[in-house]
């Protein structure tokens, strides 16, 4: 049992060693994105129409990085400044489900096919879920 655990720990260390450079690279990239892409830059892309804002929300959420609550704060500001609720919902959803920055890492761990299909589905569902959430919310208000 102990030998088995030792073997397993070594193979786990091997995995860590394999992904370490990629992990450091991605973390560095996240730092750059967080600092250089400002909410003002993102806000200027929205125009108030539901369909346009959903697409822009999905795209901007996908390239933004950070803790989830940051997307709530930015999304809340967007709402105040006239971005449609559809766009804001798409933004906070794709903020956590899509990560352009971490794509290379996902690609190298899971392989091309899995990564591609998963991300395409994530984009489609960010659009669908943001539309249906905002639509259903209309019945409660």
């Amino acid at each position, binding site marked *: 049992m102990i030998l088995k*655990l030792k*073997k397993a720990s070594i*193979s786990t260390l091997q995995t860590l060693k394999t992904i370490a450079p*990629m992990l450091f690279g991605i973390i560095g990239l996240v730092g750059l994105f967080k*600092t250089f892409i400002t909410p003002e830059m993102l806000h200027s892309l929205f125009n108030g129409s539901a369909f346009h804002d959903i697409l822009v929300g999905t795209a901007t959420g996908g390239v933004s990085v950070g803790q989830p609550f940051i997307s709530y704060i930015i999304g809340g500001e967007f709402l105040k400044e006239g971005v449609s609720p559809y766009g804001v919902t798409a933004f906070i959803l794709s903020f956590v489900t899509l990560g352009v920055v971490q794509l290379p890492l*996902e690609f190298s761990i899971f392989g091309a096919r899995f990564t591609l299909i998963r991300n395409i589905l994530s984009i489609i*569902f960010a659009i669908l879920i943001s539309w249906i959430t905002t639509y259903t919310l209309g019945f409660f208000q």
Partner: protein
Amino acid sequence: MDYYLYAWIFSVKKIPKAQKSGYVILTVVSIAYIVLFFVNSHKTYLALMESFDILKMIAPIILIVFFIMAMLNSSIDSKAISKHLGEDSGIKGWMIALIGGILSHGPGYVWYPMLQELRNKGAKDGLVVAFIYARSIKLPWLPVMISYFGVYFTILLSIYVILGAFIQGIIINKLQNRF
């Protein structure tokens, strides 16, 4: 020194492909930092500090994930994995994937190596995708979301995300069986 550790440190095996592409990314990012430093040194410094903060934040999570992986490797065999997360896992498999996704902490990429390990041992792709999507429900942040967007919005979005994770998993499983 322990034989295995010794073998690991001095292994002269071919560098894995994933590690090679990692070095490429690391080099590109390093060059980006150097170039941006000349463009805007203050902001680049802030970005670097931001990266260190992220590293500090995820370090304990990485330790937990790799501890789970080591346990998985040593005590749970492929048979058990395929029973609970494989072809015939049924509702139980979905519950494990969805609840596990909701409860898992930290950025998604930290969990990827463990998920790939599970795939190698026979877990269905659909369950892995459902896990990753269910991660967009962040329990600790729900109160913050409620304060910004209201209770109804938060409940509706969470329900649709769980449904979405489930449907995406089913689609992936169908695709997996087809090709």
